[in-house]
């Protein structure tokens, strides 16, 4: 086996991991604080990707230029979903988890329908930064590299935000111990809304960047949700370094298994790794154990 091939597969895997990480970071923020698996997460990614494609094709706005607008839009959507829908959920302890899961399932259906009504069922993508830099025998995809870099920047910014700001500390408190945080005067309601806004803004950023890598249509959302959740489970809840590590492992698994085994087995990796990790290390690689 030639070393440059292994290196190339490693680069491919890591860059793919960057793509996975983008989809996962926002979900991690939301799940960490609210313990809600937002099944509509992938739909927000796709909705933004489709908007980015239209913005590029109609008005020549590149996804990078549109990134701030996309993030504001995503944040708004997240806040709306929380305030208008999830907030209405009666605090009925035994079924709250199930009901919230089902609510986001309804929201996800709705967003698929909405995207279909706006964008039709066409697959769209942005033909921008599609090439790669050639370094000797190696090739590094431009848009993937960008997605990878943005994922790391977002993870780092989240780290700083959570550690060094007042809001961040409140968010962390809320994600670690709801009752404790409430006792310390943190408004859980506000933290929930904030986490939905923040998480959805990141999902929107992911969508804008992914539009340069994949062609998506309104039905593509659930794939991103599932991959994002695999990454979160693998890396550990609430751990942003874990999310990066988890996506890197998944990316490498898809890349190497796909190459040396079979692409179909490679495509199975996110699910298989997800189940195995949960069975043998339920708290994820870097997560704290959940009582």
């Amino acid at each position, binding site marked *: 086996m030639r070393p440059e091939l292994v290196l190339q597969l490693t680069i491919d895997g890591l860059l793919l991991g960057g793509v996975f990480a983008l989809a996962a970071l926002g979900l991690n923020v939301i799940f960490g604080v609210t313990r809600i698996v937002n099944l509509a997460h992938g739909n927000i990614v796709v909705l933004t990707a489709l908007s980015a494609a239209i913005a590029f094709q109609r008005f020549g706005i590149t996804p990078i230029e549109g990134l701030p607008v996309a993030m504001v839009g995503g944040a708004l959507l997240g806040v709306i979903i929380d305030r208008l829908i999830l907030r209405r*959920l009666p605090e*009925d302890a035994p*079924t709250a988890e199930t009901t919230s*899961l089902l*609510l986001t399932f309804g929201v996800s*259906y709705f967003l*698929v329908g909405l995207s279909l009504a706006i964008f039709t069922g066409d697959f769209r993508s942005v033909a921008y930064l599609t090439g790669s830099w050639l370094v000797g025998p190696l090739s590094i995809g431009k848009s993937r590299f960008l997605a990878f870099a943005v994922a790391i920047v977002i993870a780092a910014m989240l780290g700083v935000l959570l550690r060094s700001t007042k809001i961040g500390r409140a968010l962390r408190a809320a994600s670690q111990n709801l009752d404790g945080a409430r006792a310390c005067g943190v408004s859980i309601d506000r933290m929930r809304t904030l986490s939905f806004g923040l998480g959805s803004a990141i999902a929107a950023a992911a969508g804008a960047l992914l539009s340069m890598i994949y062609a998506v249509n309104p039905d593509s959302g659930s794939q991103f949700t599932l991959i994002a959740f695999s990454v979160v489970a693998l890396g550990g809840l609430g751990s942003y370094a874990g999310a990066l590590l988890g996506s890197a492992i998944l990316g490498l698994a898809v890349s190497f298994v796909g190459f040396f085994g079979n692409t179909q*087995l490679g495509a199975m990796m996110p699910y298989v790794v997800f189940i195995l990790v*949960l069975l043998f290390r339920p708290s994820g690689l870097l997560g704290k154990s959940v009582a």
Partner: protein
Amino acid sequence: MIAKRAGYAVLALLFVVLLLAPLSGNGYIVSLCYITALFVALAYGWNLISGYAGYLSFGQITFFGIGAYAVAIGVTRFHLPWYLCAALGGVACAALAVPMGWLMLRLRGPFFALGMLGLAQTARILTNLTPISGGSEGIYLPPGANAIAAYYWTLAIMVGGVVLTAAIDRNAFGLRLRALREDERAAGTLGVDTTRSNVQAFVLSAIFPALLGGGYAWYLTYVEPNSIYSTEIELQTVAMAILGGMGTLWGPLVGGLIMSQVSESLSTRFPQTHLMIFGALIVVLLIALPRGIVPAVAAFLKKRGIA
């Protein structure tokens, strides 16, 4: 008391109508009844693991797929009668569900739900890769008047679902499951073998989709991984059981009857926007009646002193 009697009368009438529906000779009515019975029966199966044992599953379609392939392969490759293959598929899934349940039930809450979803995706890809399944080309079954036989098969399983659930409502196993759903740790301390009861529920709940998948293959006359391991079928089933009322005897029936009609009407009347409306409907109903329709109606009747 009056309400209860009225309820049983409606049920009896419904059953007679369903039983006699094929006599109309109208293929559309048979199809509609088939789809309704299919989803109601699927919802009863799902209700056992998710409603009674409290483990929300998004992956029961795995067993549905295995059942469908049991019939497709058995009929075309081994020339066995389809119902025998469907029954064998049920037995195979029951056996498979024991180790699978033992493993998967160690996951909790959303992890179990999405773990099962991942399992279904894995099963789909593995089916693609297995030569005997015909891979992505699928398997064509002999065409003919299969719908009526598949319908009665499905109807029988649906009735079986009602009877089994009614029995569980009244027996020791059911009480153990309900205790587990409320508080697994406390139930364990009270002597409930949590793993065993959960695995039993998982196995029972796997048999339903397995048997139904067999009928589905016969009904459709064509199986192919993407339309058999269908996330859509899975999620619709879940939505129906939840809207009717999880962990209740009549929830799957009521939810399935209502939702399959609503979903059908929506898709024919609003081809462009029906998904949006369906999604909104789920959200609104969940907010208004978080425990589902059946418990809400029961509470309403109780308040009025009717039941």
